[in-house]
Every structure is written in C-alpha cells, then in structure tokens.
C-alpha cells in the first residue's frame, strides 16, 4: 500500500536534512574515487591497446635500401590485416637515439628505416601473414611484435587495476557503512513517532514503509546534490590536469560505464538508506509486543 501522505516530518528538522547532506558529501567523495579508478583503467587499456595493436617493421640499411622500404610500405598498405602503416621520419628516429649516442654520432649512422604498423586485427595468424608478406618484399626486414612490452603492460594493468579496485571497494564500503549509520542515527529522533504509530494500531509494514520511503527520498536527494557538486569540482581537477604534459596525463575519454556508475550512486545510496531504515524500524518494533 503505497501512499503519498506521510506521518513523518518530511522536510522537517535536523534529521532529514542531515542524512541528505551526509549522502551528498559521501557521494561526492565516492564519485572522485570512481573517476580516479576509471581514469586509471582507461590509461591502462589505452596503453595495452596501443601496444598490442601495433608492430614495428625494421628495414636495415644496405643495398636497395630505398627500394626495399618503398616495397615494404606498399605491401603493408595493401595487406588486409593492416589498418595503417607509416614510415617513421628520419628526424624522429634521430631524436629517439640522440640521448643515447650523442648528436654527432647519430648523423653518421647508417640507421634502419622504422615503419609503424597499426593492425586491424592483432591475433597471431594475422601477425604471421604480415610477417610473410614483409619478408617477401624485404628479406632482411625484422618485425618487432612488442611482446616484451606487452607482457609488462599486462602485468602492470593487472596490478594497478587491482589496487584501484581495492581502493574503490574500500571507499564504497565506507560510504555504505556511513549511510547505514546516518540513517539509523536520524531515526533515534523518531522513537516517539514509531511508538505512537504502533499504539494506534499501525502494522509493522506500514510504519517501516513510512520511514523507508523518507530515507530513500533523503538519500537520493543528497546523492543528486553530491553529483551536482562533483561536476564543477571535476572541472577544476581537469583544468589542473590539462596543464600537465599530455604525454604523462593524457586526456582520456571516460567510458559510458563510468558515467553510469556515477549515475548509480544516488539510487544505490537511496536503496541502502531505505533498507537500513526499514531494518532499524522493524527491529525497534520487534522489541515491542
């Protein structure tokens, strides 16, 4: 029996505003934890994808160098498993080497040509097919699959992802505990209301339902307010982060799942508050005859 009429002080007193304010603050914190974890997740998977979907083809210096390079590029461009292949400009190769062998040395070196290859598809069969085509065009060419990097990044992803998940689980658990405490505390004010409703013959479900509905409303209100506060705060952090070298903190598109998780915070807080109100009231009632 869902009635809109309530026997409780809905907008009233400290208690109501209190659960709402508290949920606001906590959803705000939790939203940051979720964002941090999503961002780390995006970085990780970006690296993983960046590495696992690419190959580097080296064509060593030697006779027919230019012809071999041109042919290799042509073969790669037309290979069905390849999305994109491009020669790394000599200036860039020089820049990469300069820290290690000095400016003077680099100029004189007979450097190999490097070709960055983005694969459409990175399963071993496709890699083998590309390898075969390249070898046909330039027998001395070497394909580097970034296997070592891949293994390292994968271990990184697992480890850092685990830590991020642990932190978000801890924060969410703390959030849940707090909402439960807060809801129960806000009910201590209402002992008399419970008592009177009980005495005039209200059934347990009626009484518990009244409080559960109120707690739900308060927590959802607070949760939405928390997200409303989070938005500009995230803006500030994003502006600060944008001033950092983008190679270190690359701008990332947070996935839809992240925004969904944020959108779920208020209803989740509401359900928690509702359940804890319901249980608390029923326990209070069970102590009466």
């Amino acid at each position, binding site marked *: 029996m869902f009635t809109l*009429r309530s*026997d*409780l*002080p809905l907008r*009233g*007193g400290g208690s109501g505003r209190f659960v709402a304010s508290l949920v606001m603050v906590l959803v705000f914190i939790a939203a940051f934890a979720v964002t941090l974890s999503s961002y780390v997740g995006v970085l990780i998977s970006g690296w993983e994808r960046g590495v696992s979907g690419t190959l580097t083809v080296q064509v060593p210096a030697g006779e027919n160098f230019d012809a071999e390079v041109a042919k290799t590029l042509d073969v790669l461009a037309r290979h069905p498993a390849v999305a994109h292949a491009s020669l790394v400009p000599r200036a860039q190769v020089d820049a990469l080497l300069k820290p290690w062998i000095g400016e003077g040395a680099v100029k004189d070196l007979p450097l190999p040509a490097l070709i960055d290859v983005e694969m459409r598809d990175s399963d071993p069969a496709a890699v083998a097919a590309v390898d075969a085509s390249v070898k046909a065009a330039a027998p001395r060419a070497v394909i580097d699959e970034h296997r070592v990097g891949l293994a390292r990044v994968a271990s990184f992803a697992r480890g850092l992802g685990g830590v991020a998940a642990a932190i978000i689980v801890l924060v969410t658990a703390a959030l849940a505990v707090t909402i439960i405490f807060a809801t129960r505390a806000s009910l201590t004010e209402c002992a*008399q*209301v419970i*008592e*009177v*409703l*009980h*005495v*005039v*013959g*209200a*059934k*347990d479900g*009626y009484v518990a339902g009244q409080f559960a509905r109120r707690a739900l409303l308060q927590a959802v209100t607070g949760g939405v307010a928390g997200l409303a506060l989070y938005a500009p705060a995230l803006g500030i952090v994003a502006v600060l982060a944008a001033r950092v070298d983008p190679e270190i903190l690359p701008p990332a598109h947070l996935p839809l799942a992240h925004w969904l998780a944020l959108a779920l915070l208020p209803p989740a807080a509401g359900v928690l508050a509702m359940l804890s109100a319901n249980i608390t009231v029923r326990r209070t*009632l069970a102590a*009466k*005859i």
Partner: protein
Amino acid sequence: MNPPTPQVEKKLPGDTISLNQVGLRYDGGPEVLSDLSLTIAPGSFHFLTGPSGAGKTSLLSLMYLAKRPTRGRVLLFGEDTTAAKRTRLAIMRRRLGVVFQDFRLLDHMTAFDNVALPLRVAGVAPGVVQRDVTELLKWVGLENEMDKHPPALSGGQQQRVAIARAVVNRPKLILADEPTGNVDDAIALRLMTLFVELHKIGSSVIIATHNHALVERFPFPRLHLEDGVLTRMPAARN
C-alpha cells in the same frame, strides 16, 4: 447520566478484557503488579484509583498491549494476546483508544493531524476523517487550535487533543490515564460527558485518576490499586 449498569449493547463476543493471575516486573526489579485477576465486562465504566506509584499506568499498559505480563495471561476481546500474531495485535489495537498520562502527541503534526492519525492508519476515507475530526475537536473546545502544533498549545489543550485522538475511531475499549489532570473543572466535566456518551453507545471505559471530586461526582464503580494489588474489584463482582 446513566447508571453504570451492564450495557444494552453487547456486540462483542467475549469479555472486553480479562486478566488472569497476572504479574508484571520491570527488568529484574520487584513485582509492580502481582496476582492480578479481573474481568471487564463489555460496556462497563470504571474508575481506576490508587496512590502515585501503585501501578495504575502499568496495569493500563498491559491492557493496551504495550507490555507483556511477566506471568499470567491477558485476554482482549476474548483473544489470548500472548498467542496472537503481530498483525493481529495491530488490528486489536485499533479497537482501543488510549489517553496517555504524558499525552504523546506528535510535535510535527497539527492538532488536526494528530487526532486524524488513528483513522488514517486504519485507512478511513479522507472525507470521513475531515468530518469526524473537526466535529470532535469542536466538542473538546479546540475549534480555533486545529492547525496549531502541540508545542504551541497549552497543557490543557494538549490533553484535550490526546483525548480526541483516543476516541476518534469510536473504540470498543477506552483506557484513559489521568485525562483531566491539566484542565479546569468545567472542561473536565465536558470531557467526562464525552466518555459517558461513548460509554452509552457501547464502549467500555476505564479512567485512571487522582481526582476524587470526579470519582465522587460520577456514580461509576471504582477499581482501587494499592502497591500492585487490586483492593476493589470490577463492577460485575461488586
């Protein structure tokens, strides 16, 4: 005013209330009520007297199902309250009207809503609620205070709201604890008339009071408690 003779209206199956060898103690303390056995017939009217601390409020709280006896049995409207389920107890409470010694009004509701509460909990239609509550509040002289919240009412006004709440659903059994302690004699008489009217249309009434003038003025039988023991028995046994 009618004499407290056994009532014409006897719609209810068994006795209104019946206590059998009842004892009550508060967590480990001495027995506040001992070996109480009494039967209240339907449509009867009793005063409950006794010195302060004798156990009047405790006895009433057994009757309005706020406490379980530590021993003995309490039967309400012929049903054993020990065995009854919680939902059943809630239904039984709706046939009771209780005036608490300390009123227990809800401060966040207006006087009107406080009185309307038992009707709303029982699912009575809004139109009926509006009519009954307004009429009753007029009767107790609060037509101008209906929209005030209890903290904005005087002591006597609060007491009258508490009484109105207790009787608004025409209960089968009215239990009133010191219902005239905060009002003057004129209003006390008016309130007593209300109880007598309800008694006439079939309610049983028990009024705990220290007001000797009241007890003497109305010719209803007296239950007297002294140190947890009943020294004057219900009407039916007199």
